[in-house]
């Protein structure tokens, strides 16, 4: 598994073809007033890859994901996407470029049903205006049926048929996480960002979620960037891992390389400060 040199990608141990660089972060620095959340970080995400960003609490992982999704605008550095430098964009514009995400603290519409929540993921694929939707018959109807089909395929894929009509507020935490993933998938993204997809889950739920993440990558070829705390999960799932600590990048490579990196071990296990 050799990924640095060639631009046309590499082949993973399990035989998946990883494509060329899809997104590249170049020397990103992000400040909130005097606080430096991210300091001069560069890394890339390749097509078809499962890329993890890990690090202890407060390392700046979520900030990094927010930079990718356009929620934060870094003071320094450039974001390159599909071979072009990305100008300053607002999150909805980023979403239209085919980047979808889930949130660390679930951000669903609690009062709405699972189906309606997942349907909102199709927003960028709808072209009818408010008036047409109000009339419904005709174009809006056709569009809704087409979108519903995509949504139903996602529901089937994530095995949430039994809660289709259930209001999200009534669901347990693990299922809410899955609904959030469903909404992100409904957007048919080329790059999927997952912010701690397994946080607060029990072992069984984690296993299910891992399987879904792998299946999404395998079935739709979606590139996935994820933040995760659970080291075991990260090492099993991802092709390459970026390790952050105090806003700096301290490691980047395959799970095995990262595991044997002294800086990473120090960051996780702690070192004696003299």
């Amino acid at each position, binding site marked *: 598994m050799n990924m640095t040199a060639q631009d046309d990608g590499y082949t993973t141990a399990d035989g998946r073809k990883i494509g060329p660089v899809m997104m590249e972060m170049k020397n990103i620095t992000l400040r909130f007033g005097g606080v430096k959340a991210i300091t001069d970080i560069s890394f890339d995400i390749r097509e078809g890859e499962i890329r993890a960003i890990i690090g202890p609490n407060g390392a700046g992982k979520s900030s990094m994901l927010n930079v990718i999704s356009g929620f934060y605008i870094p003071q320094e550095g450039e974001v390159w996407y599909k071979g072009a430098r990305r100008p300053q964009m607002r999150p909805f514009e980023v979403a239209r470029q085919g980047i979808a995400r889930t949130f660390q603290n679930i951000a669903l519409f609690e009062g709405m049903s699972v189906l309606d929540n997942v349907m909102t993921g199709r927003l960028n694929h709808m072209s009818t205006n408010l008036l047409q939707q109000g009339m419904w018959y005709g174009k809006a109807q056709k569009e809704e049926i087409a979108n519903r089909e995509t949504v139903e395929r996602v*529901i089937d894929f994530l095995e949430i*048929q*039994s809660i289709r009509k259930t209001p999200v507020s009534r669901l347990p935490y693990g299922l809410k996480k899955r609904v959030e993933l469903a909404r992100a998938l409904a957007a048919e993204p080329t790059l999927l960002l997952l912010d701690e997809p397994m946080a607060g889950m029990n072992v069984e739920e984690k296993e299910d979620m891992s399987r879904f993440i792998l299946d999404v990558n395998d079935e739709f070829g979606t590139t996935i960037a994820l933040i995760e705390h659970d080291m075991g999960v990260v090492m099993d799932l991802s092709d390459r891992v970026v390790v952050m600590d105090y806003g700096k990048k301290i490691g980047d490579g395959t799970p095995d390389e990262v595991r044997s990196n002294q800086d990473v071990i120090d960051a996780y296990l702690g070192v004696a400060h003299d």
Partner: protein
Amino acid sequence: MAQSSEATGGLASVPALLQRNATEHAAKAAYREKEFGIWQTWSWAEAEKEVEAFALGLINLGVNAGDFVAIIGRNRPHFYWSMIAAQSVGAIPVPLYNDSSAEEMAYVMDHCGARFAVVEDQEQVDKVIEVQDNLHQFEHMIYLDPRGLRKYDHHKLHQFSHVQEQGRAARDEWIEDLKARRAKLTYDSTCVMLYTSGTTGKPKGVVLSNRNIIETAKASSSFDNLSAGEEILAYLPMAWVGDFIFSLGQALWTGFCVNCPESPETMMTDLREIGPTYYFAPPRVFENQLTSVMIRMEDASPFKKKLFDRAMAHARKVGPKLLDGKSVSLMDRLKYKFHDLTIFGPLKNTLGLSRVRVGYTAGEAIGPEIFAFYRSLGINLKQLYGQTEAGVFITQQPDGEVRDDTVGVPSPGVEVRIGDNGEVYYRSPGTFVEYYKNPESTADTKDAEGWVATGDAGFFEPDTGHLRIIDRAKDVGKMASGAMFAPKYVENKLKFYPSILEAVLFGNGREKCVAFINIDMSAVGNWAERNNIAYSSYQELAGHPQVLGEIQSHVEAVNASVAQDEMLSGCQIHRFLVLHKELDADDGEMTRTRKVRRRIIEEKYADLIAALYSDADEIATKTEVTYEDGRKGYISATLSLRNAAVVPVQTKQVAAE
């Protein structure tokens, strides 16, 4: 016993019935499955095309007449088609329980020497791959759902739709072969092989011929006037004989529509959407439904609860009478009609039972209250008694003669007699051919004249002619005092309480009886919630003093009721404990159809039984548990042992001394 296929108009096999339906009921819905939120329908003519394509594909893959084809998956039209396709090419379908572990599957597939398997998804593919090295005859696997299987080695792995495509492509080449194979099927050729769940020992392969299945389907369909207009929901395990008879035998014989749920979790929603007219469920399902209704009524406002209680009180009085066609006063009729419009109607609709014309329950005894509840709503729920070896039906209750404590009169064409030891014997056209590769067991079970021992002890009620089952004949024993020991009788009484899920009684050859009890997590959990009792696990809830107190009151009530019965008054429970884990099929404590395996429990928990027969107040124990994925772990607990009050009785034997 000499029915020939003449009697069925030359329709000597299940594939022949399909051919008939494809012409006679061509455009009528045959199969429905909910996929992507929409009910997809296949007519009989379309189903026939699907089956043909798959059968041709099977020939193309090299399936020979006489081969065994394992079918592993939940109820889906494709699996019913696979079974008929296998029959069409002269092979024998062997449906397996899809929740069995890899070892259980290995045993069955090795025993029948299956060369092919049709499985549902990655989970099942993985299980078969895990064991296939030990299966010397096994060759090809066909899967339905391709998800996650892209990277697998596809030399001997095929997608269902691809097999069908290859079959269609090679139609010209193989169609004559297929027709010839289909024409060769007779009333005596094997229709299916089903493995018994095996309360004792290894599962046995029950060979059922086309005669068994078609004769049984014919007789039972006419018994209840089933027509092509019926709708059923196929949700019970495909490996179980009942599903085979209802969803395949009767469906093909009468041409009614088989509906498959979207997923096991959506079964209740799908039931409501389909509104079956013919419905089968084991007592457990009815029990769970009733429990959830009652829990919701407990949580409802006092006004609503009062309305419900009043309507139900009236329903209990007149509902069963109306169903049995007995005379009811006009006023009562009107009142019932009113409640039906306002309360029962919507309730039945919620339960998905609005359209049920014939409902059956079997497998275990059903609680009188549960049975009465459904009957009083106007649902024609009846009981039947049967087993795999009989092709289900031995006895069933005719309309208008329904009782909660009997299992009815012999089904059409079935002869039943009671042996000298009280065991029930039967003989019928549905009686199985043999146990596969097991002539000794076949000879033990079925005698030269075709009488089959059921293993159940029972008797005919003299005045009604209805059969009553007491217990498994081998479980019926004697206590040290000489009194009769019939554990099931007492256990059933216990299980009729919503808070008790399972009970196991011990006492054969002993002075007195003791019992293990499993609480029902949903009922007791809800009760705990309403009473502000905090708990974090099953184990904690099961050990809670208030729960134990509640269970004790039930045990004592059961003792009082058992004491009424002269024959069985010795079976009162002197001491009991509430188990720290649920009895589970994964641990081998129950069969896959959730019947208690008495011997295994007796061995596994010998320490607990010994403690119950000692004077100890509590016991510390450690139990091995198996997780769904086959890993093992331990749970340890300290269980309190409780004494229950018994009603003193003078048994006849004691009095005689």
